């Protein structure tokens, strides 16, 4: 493992990669700090800019953007009480209360330090678990992969809110969209509606930008309250001795919880922050302060969040299966670079694999170093009125979408998916599972076909192979755990009438 880490460090410490990691962290924080722009939107927005780079540099930059956007999100959650996305919701609970009490600096500091520590530990977890899981995955045949992907798809809906049929429908719709284009085996062109530009499939960048970028802009214009508020004063960026000693155990617990939950497919990120907050509230000696700005309530969830965002790379890097929408974006970026993520990556692209892992740690260090001193800059960004912001985002989206294939058609696709995304918001669908379905759809078909050729059309292969059967069983359990409470609730309601 040491050799590998050394290899990774040598890749990550090259001047070019350091520079782009730095650039990614800065841009990611700058955009992530803007209220109403979460990490997924940030990454979709900036995706086209990385296509001209080497695959490794592009991934390092994207990873930097990802962490940066998360740090930025915590900053706006603490200072403005506006969570950029679900994972920052918990931070507003205690963090903003601390800010109101004049301890914004301490809150920001503990978030940054806790995240850095968690990131360091989680990077080691990734380095250790990656090769292990890869060797397991190498033994998988098409049947196992098919069942695993199916499990991943089901898991992607576990934490979705609201109607379970709707989240599942999003997944299925995503899979269907992923099938648009040329069928590789038969050469048959499917569902292109006569557009030759769709022969290679629906554009990933237009899809992501439309669903997350454009639709959110329309949404924010519609509800101005989502994007403004008064910024709390930062004050001294330092922890008192007492605050420090109170935070240490929370950071440790958050790190452990986050590292573990992050590996789970399907939004382990949000789960880890909520779980950590609940845990802290249970075990803390200062239980009474919760709700009024308890530092444990920032330290724990922020560490958990960062640890989980690191370890969520594990299923992506080893199995090629995205645990959340951000990882779906990463896979999309790799595929546009011509790299198929999966268990072979560690052997075929060792510099990419280990370089990315090493850069995770470097990115976290950079964020610690740049974030605290630059907090004044981020605060001033928070004050940019949205009316100047959104046209700028639109311009970058439009040129970015165009530049992927130098095609105006991609701009129109972005428009179309913007409409779709807005309709989804209005009808209370969550768009993230759609993106995961879109990435996994072609793989699902591929493995299904291969497994069925091998079994000569016998479906029982999926339950006869033990590993595959376990995956399917887990999927069925998750599915019934989601559907059954709904049914029981409805039955009770019906009986009550």
């Amino acid at each position: 493992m040491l050799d590998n880490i050394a290899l990774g460090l040598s890749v990550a410490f090259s001047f070019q990669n350091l520079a782009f990691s730095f650039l990614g962290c800065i841009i990611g924080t700058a955009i992530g700090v803007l209220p109403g722009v979460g990490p997924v939107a940030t990454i979709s927005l900036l995706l086209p800019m990385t296509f001209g780079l080497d695959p490794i540099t592009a991934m390092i930059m994207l990873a930097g953007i990802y962490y940066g956007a998360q740090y930025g999100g915590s900053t706006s959650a603490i200072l403005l009480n506006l969570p950029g996305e679900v994972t920052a919701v918990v931070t507003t609970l205690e963090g903003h209360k601390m800010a109101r009490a004049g301890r914004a600096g301490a809150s920001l500091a503990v978030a940054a330090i806790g995240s850095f520590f968690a990131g360091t530990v989680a990077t080691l977890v990734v380095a250790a678990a990656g090769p292990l899981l890869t060797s397991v995955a190498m033994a998988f045949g098409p049947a196992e992969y098919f069942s695993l992907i199916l499990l991943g798809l089901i898991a992607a809906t576990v934490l979705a809110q609201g109607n379970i049929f709707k989240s599942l429908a999003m997944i299925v719709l995503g899979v269907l969209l992923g099938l648009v284009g040329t069928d590789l085996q038969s050469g048959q062109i499917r569902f292109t509606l006569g557009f030759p530009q769709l022969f290679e499939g629906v554009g990933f960048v237009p899809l992501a930008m439309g669903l997350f970028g454009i639709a959110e802009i329309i949404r924010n214009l519609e509800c101005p309250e989502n994007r403004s508020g008064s910024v709390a004063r930062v004050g001294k960026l330092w922890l008192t001795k007492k605050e420090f000693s109170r935070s240490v155990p929370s950071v440790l617990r958050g790190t452990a919880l986050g590292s573990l939950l992050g590996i789970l497919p399907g939004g382990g990120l949000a789960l880890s922050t909520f779980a950590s907050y609940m845990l802290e509230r249970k075990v803390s000696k200062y239980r009474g302060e919760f709700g009024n700005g308890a530092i444990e309530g920032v330290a724990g969830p922020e560490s958990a969040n960062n640890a989980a965002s690191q370890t969520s790379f594990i299923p992506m890097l080893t199995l090629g299966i995205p645990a959340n929408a951000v990882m779906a974006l990463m896979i999309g970026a790799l595929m546009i670079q011509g790299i198929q993520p999966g268990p072979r990556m560690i052997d075929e692209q060792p510099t990419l694999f280990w370089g990315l892992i090493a850069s995770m740690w470097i990115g976290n260090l950079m964020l610690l170093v740049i974030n605290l001193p630059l907090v004044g800059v981020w605060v001033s960004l928070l004050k940019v009125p949205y009316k100047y912001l959104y046209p700028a985002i639109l311009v970058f989206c439009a040129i970015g979408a165009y530049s992927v294939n130098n095609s105006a058609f991609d701009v129109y696709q972005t428009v179309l998916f913007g409409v779709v995304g807005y309709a989804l918001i209005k009808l209370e669908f969550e768009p993230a599972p759609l993106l995961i379905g879109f990435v996994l759809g072609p793989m699902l078909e591929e493995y299904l076909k291969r497994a069925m050729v091998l079994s000569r059309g016998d479906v029982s292969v999926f339950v006869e192979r033990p590993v595959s059967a376990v995956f399917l069983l887990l999927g069925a359990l998750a599915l019934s755990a989601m559907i059954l409470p709904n049914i029981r609730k409805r039955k009770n309601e019906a009986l009550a009438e």
Partner: protein
Amino acid sequence: MTIRGNARDIASGAALLLLTAIGVYINLDYPLGTASRMGPGYMPLVVLVALGILGFGVLLTGVRGEPQRLERWAWREAGLILAALTIFGMMLENIGMAASTVALVVISGLADRTQTLKGIAALAVALVVICWLVFTWGLQISVPFLPPFLTSH
């Protein structure tokens, strides 16, 4: 006509079912093959059946659900943003990045009622400069910056 139940879910379910029907119709053209040698139409059909079932499920929960009306749509904002992007796409290759960016900023700027003429003008100038710096000078993308008919003889 009044519809009882959750109108959002009913509309969603209906939309999913409509989409399924269109998908199945298109998929009729593609050979299904057999389970051991799947044709290009096999997987889409499986997926469409799943979509149809889920659409029906959504529809059903909508009919049975708590009454809830459709949310109002921000037609004006959505229309302006989407029109601005579409016009940008049509202009970009023919008239160049500078003019298209100005058009995009002006049209999309109308979507925020608090925006002022001065604000739009300043934003347009700033963004044209930034775009030149980032895309033309920095990333050197192959889009003309100024209208081609002005620069070529």
